[in-house]
């Protein structure tokens, strides 16, 4: 076996030194009834070539986004990742290192995390950012739990524009600790509706920008209303590229900002691994979940970095910890940070403008189609359209023509009664030809 260095001789010698007759002697503590006599009923080992053939065959049964017209968004976005980013995350010293618990020989990872935190702080406008969460949806759930801890209240209000998966993941987590999640009806331009249901029991309101329908909004009024009743404002962003152009959560009064960072540096990967961004006001820092990297000095007074404030964390605070998270999304954070370092503020803004322009071009093409109605009032790079019939069937029909037309809202939330709503997205990857093909196919399908 190519991955197992021990030879039979090694094993014999080592057993000898240990003083065991056979390997079985080392498994004596296993109850006899549970000892497996031999290999289980699974295929035995295979060479690289065979494994590569088998998995390549599976891969060939999927239709890559890059293989043709593609317009899916709704929380996962297809952007161009510079070749150097994927090269860097494959560096042995980044790829095969562990959580930087021994700072003196992990300064590479630690400095990257410090830079990552600084970048996330600059994008969200909130000073305290952590070293990453699993993804945007679990960050949202943790933010709600954090708000409940901070306010000592047990109710969270989720806007009708929040991504349904985020709402569900948040409910799952909050529910078990008795934190109620009140989710407003799905509504294309529904963020501001949260104000009406705020009360003194409210721990936090969760709004999304751009929201799941692509609608871009202003939250200052919501922030004021929330703060007026002692609730926190949590702003969710699923399309991180929008940070390059849209008002930052902090500018609108957010107390906590969470985001899905996949758009920057990370591929679609069928939904994971992604990277959760988490930032908050300075005053809430010690209530944050996840790891924090901090700057310090070494014995010679030189700058260095360490994991810090770990008394918030499970390995020290145990059942009093701010979260149970341990392994996070370090390598995806590196990819995010490296891509962000290539872009810079200038490049990110330009990229955001380009995305917006592409989406406008897409909208201009689709709005021409009889029977199709654009329902998103103000968008960044994605928007919702209402079709004359169930969006799911239209999407399947177009997929058969090799056009991936977007995401039917019913796939995210079948109970919302929005079966005819289709979410479409364009990015810098979307070409004029893609748009033309899509419009043509959709027009034909609707006419049919």
């Amino acid at each position, binding site marked *: 076996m190519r991955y197992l260095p021990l030879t039979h001789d090694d094993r014999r010698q080592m057993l000898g030194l240990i003083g065991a007759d056979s390997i079985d002697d080392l498994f004596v503590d296993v109850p006899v009834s549970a000892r497996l006599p031999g290999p289980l009923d699974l295929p035995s080992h295979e060479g690289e070539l065979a494994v590569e053939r088998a998995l390549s065959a599976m891969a060939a049964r999927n239709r890559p986004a890059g293989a043709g017209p593609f317009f899916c968004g709704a929380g*996962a976005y297809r952007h161009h990742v510079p070749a150097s980013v994927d090269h860097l995350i494959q560096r042995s010293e980044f790829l095969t290192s562990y959580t930087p618990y021994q700072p003196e020989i992990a300064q590479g990872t630690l400095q990257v995390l410090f830079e990552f935190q600084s970048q996330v702080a600059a994008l969200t406008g909130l000073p305290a950012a952590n070293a990453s969460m699993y993804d945007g949806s679990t960050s949202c759930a943790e933010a709600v739990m954090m708000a409940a801890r901070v306010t000592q209240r047990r109710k969270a209000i989720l806007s009708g524009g929040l991504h349904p998966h985020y709402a569900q993941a948040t409910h799952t987590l909050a529910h078990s600790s008795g934190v109620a999640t009140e989710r407003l009806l799905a509504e294309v331009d529904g963020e501001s509706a949260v104000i009406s249901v705020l009360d003194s029991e409210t721990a936090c309101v969760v709004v999304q920008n751009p929201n799941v329908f692509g609608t871009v*909004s202003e939250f200052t009024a919501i922030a004021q209303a929330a703060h007026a009743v002692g609730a926190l404002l949590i702003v969710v962003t699923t399309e991180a590229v929008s940070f390059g152009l849209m008002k930052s959560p902090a500018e609108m009064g957010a107390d906590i900002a969470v985001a899905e960072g996949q758009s920057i540096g990370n591929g679609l990967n069928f939904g994971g691994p992604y990277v959760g961004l988490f930032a908050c006001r300075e005053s809430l820092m010690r209530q944050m979940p996840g790891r924090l990297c901090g700057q310090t000095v070494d014995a010679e007074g030189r700058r260095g970095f360490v994991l810090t404030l770990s008394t918030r964390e499970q390995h020290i605070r145990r059942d009093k910890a701010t979260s149970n998270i341990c392994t996070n999304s370090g390598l995806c954070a590196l990819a995010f940070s490296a891509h962000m370092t290539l872009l810079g503020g200038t490049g990110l803004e330009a*990229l955001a403008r380009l995305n917006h322009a592409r989406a406008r071009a897409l909208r201009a093409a689709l709005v021409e189609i009889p029977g199709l109605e654009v329902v998103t009032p103000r968008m960044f790079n994605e928007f919702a359209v209402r079709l004359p019939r169930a969006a799911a069937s239209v999407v399947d029909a177009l997929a058969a023509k090799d056009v991936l037309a977007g995401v039917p809202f019913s796939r995210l939330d079948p109970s919302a009664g929005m079966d005819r709503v289709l979410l479409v997205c364009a990015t810098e990857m979307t070409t004029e030809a893609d748009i033309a093909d899509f419009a043509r196919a959709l027009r034909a399908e609707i006419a049919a």
Partner: protein
Amino acid sequence: MSLSSVGRETRPMPIAKPASHPGRGLLQEEPLIFGLGGWRKTGVDLPQLPPDAASDASDLAGLTRAERPSLPGLSEPEALRHYVRLSQKNHAIDLAIYPLGSCTMKHNPRLCEKLARLPGFSDIHPLQPIATVQGALALMSELAHWLKTLTGMPAVALSPKAGAHGELCGLLAMRAAHEARGDARKTVLAPTSAHGTNPATAALAGYQVVEIAQTIDGRVDLADLAAKLNRDVAAVMVTNPNTCGLFERDVIEIARLTHAAGAYFYCDGANFNAIVGRVRPGDLGVDAMHINLHKTFSTPHGGGGPGAGPVVLSEALAPFAPTPWIVQDGSGWALAEHAEGPAQAALGRMCAFHGQMGMYVRALAYMMSHGSDGLRQVAEDAVLNANYVKARLQAVMSAPFPRGPCMHEALFDDEWLAGTGVTTLDFAKAMIDVGFHPMTMYFPLVVHGAMLIEPTETEPKRELDRFCDALLELAAAVRDGDTERFTGAPFHAPVRRLDETMAARRPHLRWTPEDRL
């Protein structure tokens, strides 16, 4: 996991600062990206916007940010160099043994990296039409088949994003099962030796945690368990092999007692590497167990993640598994994404989309490469390597549980350091100077000054001998009273010992223009 210290933050004595060089030999000093002067630059070339597009902002009136994010952009040569220089300040499994107990730092095959990057896996959207992702669903169900067969369990929930997330998933399934039969419960029992995520998860799941005592031979104290089991107990959480590197001999009895009390048995599977192919948790009475694909099945740790924590479930818990579920339908594979139909009783959703696909590809490639024969060999070699290290070091370093074999990791305490003026932390830092990454320190908490060594099966005997020789040499230096070598360590790392106390007292979590560069 591993701690550099628990409540024992390092605070080195300051030392006169030497003339600093731009670099030294091959090691380059590297400033922060903020110090590289890219404030108005970018390292990405984008097509020009059509002027109208640039101007027209009807959508965004009043919604754009006051000023562009003030972040530096670097040309590719500068950016690449920045990260390559930083990378060389890291230890990595590709450089030498990474003996962190409980972390299973094993070799990461490059084949897995290559396959995870096939566009058919890396460039597909989680919400594409099901007909266009049949290969992805086939891979997920193939992975599920391997996991179920290896654990002897009837069901598995793939979506949890890491071990701790898997623990949460398991406990939430138990909560759902209890609620479904109107039997709400309040507490979770776990041994003091449990990994921090166990109590943290139980609390997050809304339970109170009650600790179970440990016997002098490092196992769960059955009597104490029996005494604490009652109708309020929702679950018993046990790690097996446990965090002392020992197999819980009475695991079957633990399960029996737990079930008798109407509670469920959660097994923390972080140490599955020690028994894969030789023992099926399903044969031990387990109701739920997470599997850290980034440990046993070798997806890279990447400096802290990402990982994946699928949870295998018993018949009793299977109906409550979170969505999505992969279901076979006539024409091929489908996804049950909502709590309806077969997934009606589902506990809900653990996260957006379907989990860590990138890790599934790597883990399956790893499993197929080893096969059922190779995976069994993995467990045997992992246990053999640990016992070899234990046997070689035991003479000099004190082991809290000397008798009988250990499983995949060898545990020592600091009794042998008593009175030497050298702490576990000092000893660990001194290892760095001779080219080795320290073992896990101060965990498990039940052992004083714990040193937990997990070599894994991918270490050759030669590397184990190099490692043991070095530790024995250091131990000799301790006995010879060469204390500075330890208290001042490390001397040869890219930086000297770092001041963690200061970092915690005055948290400095991001660069600001006031900082030096």
